[in-house]
């Protein structure tokens, strides 16, 4: 615990920004829908980590409650997303998002 208290807030902000960027770049760069899901989870979890860090810094428990809300919403979102992906897989037999090109300009 003592070691964790010794870490300055800036380090948390930096870590979470890096995690968020990795997630965002992954969403933009990867072509597999499952990997994109995981990158989105990474983005949400970087916010969770940062919220807990801020919560400790401000001694305000609101943010920690919000983290639980985010976890619940993320779980709902992923369950919907996986269902959609299953539906797409049944029709196209692939999880590559480049296969989805029926809707075009």
């Amino acid at each position, binding site marked *: 615990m003592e070691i964790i208290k010794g870490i300055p807030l800036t380090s948390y*902000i930096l870590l*979470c920004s890096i995690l*968020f960027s990795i*997630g*965002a770049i992954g*969403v933009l760069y990867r072509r597999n*829908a499952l990997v*994109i899901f995981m990158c*989105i989870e990474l*983005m*949400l979890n*970087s*916010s969770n980590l*940062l*919220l807990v860090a*801020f919560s400790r810094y*401000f001694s*305000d428990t*609101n*943010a920690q409650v*919000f983290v639980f*809300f*985010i976890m619940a*919403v993320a779980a*709902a*979102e992923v369950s*919907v*997303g996986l*269902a*959609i*992906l299953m*539906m*797409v897989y049944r*029709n*196209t037999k692939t999880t590559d*998002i480049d296969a*989805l090109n*029926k*809707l075009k*300009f």
Partner: protein
Amino acid sequence: MNEIIIVAGLGILTLLAEIFNFKKLLMPVIIAGLGATLLISILELQGSISNSAMDANVLSMLDFDRFAKCFVILLTVIALFWVLINYNYFLDESSRADHLALILFAMVGGYCMVSYSNFVMLFLGIEILSIPMYVLAGSKKNSLRSNEAALKYFLMGSFATGVFLFGITLIYGTMGSFYVYDVRAKTTATEFALTPMFTVGVVMLISALSFKVSSAPFHFWAPDVYSGAPTSVTSFMATFVKTSAIAAFIRLFYTALPFVPDNFSRIFVVLIVSSLFIGNIIAVFQTNAKRLMAYSSISHVGFMLIAILFFTQATGVKALYFYAAAYSITTLAAFMVIKIVAEQSEGNDNISAFNGLVKRNPLLAGTLTIAMLSMAGIPPLSGFFAKYNMLFIALSQGYFWLVILAILASLVGVYYYFKIVIAIFTGVSVSTSSIQISFAQKIILIILTLLIIGMGLNGWVFEMI
């Protein structure tokens, strides 16, 4: 608050109806329930019913002030019309009760988005609205287009959610509170200075909300999702979802961050001008009616964002409210006609499907013509007054060049709206059989047409909020 309780209750009732098999009674109950919601929200606005313990800032999460009450009324009207128009959407599908329940739960999300007083509720509202929409966009399970729309909407929507959440986190990190009035008190204090972290947070929040209202340059999902999703769902996304998202957008500045539109006006100008031009110019090249409506909705968002830039003006929120109402009613009417015509021509929703519509059914042709003229901004119709109010505010603030750009963009718009009108009147139809519509559909079409004509001539919608 009562509206949220009633509509959530209706949603649960709908799920129970599936289990206990009283689906036949369901639609009348839902329509009566939504009617009751509308009645209660109107009475609450007038002050006849006051539930002060519930309405004034529930646990500092939801604040039902006049703004929220007015938007709740508008959203309920849209939802009620939507259910009446798409009555048969729930009769055709095998699992109609689930779809109806998802729509009702999405409505709860919309209500939260127009009445939040805490960033937590804004986030939850957006998610409660979006997650059912992801499912509904893919509700035609065997259609590859519908699948693609759902997956695209889901991936891009969750990406926007991630950005939005990080924005909230950064704002919390500088302000130490999620409560919008605390944030407002801190940002309006004299010793307040913009920190980089706060700026990044605000920009992330603006980008994510621009995504949700599908304003350019965050519009890429809209045309694909609008054309791939079933027409009924598209009309819900184009009206209800868009209205609640734009209301949430302006409420953010109205309550929490009043200084932002002034300090970040360049961002808003880019959003407005690019939405107006990208929406209108790309719409010219569309041959699919639903895609055309998607690009047209992007250009309308450009107009609505003008109100956000000048929301501090006394008429800013009023103009937005009127624009949202006029746009939603017009879009509902247009999509109703598109849906009926597409069903007649085996799901073909290209503009060519409207060729010679006036000979096949004059009422449908008349409604679609009035709707298109209103969207183009032809004077006696509500669309003209909606645009006029927006441009008047911009002009009174000295943004002369913005007014010129907006007028140029909507002149381009006149071209593609008239493309549909010309197809209706002069096109040669492949099938000459007349389109039969039920008596109830005729009544709804006439009511919508009268609303499109009447709303602009009578100022009560403008003065309501």
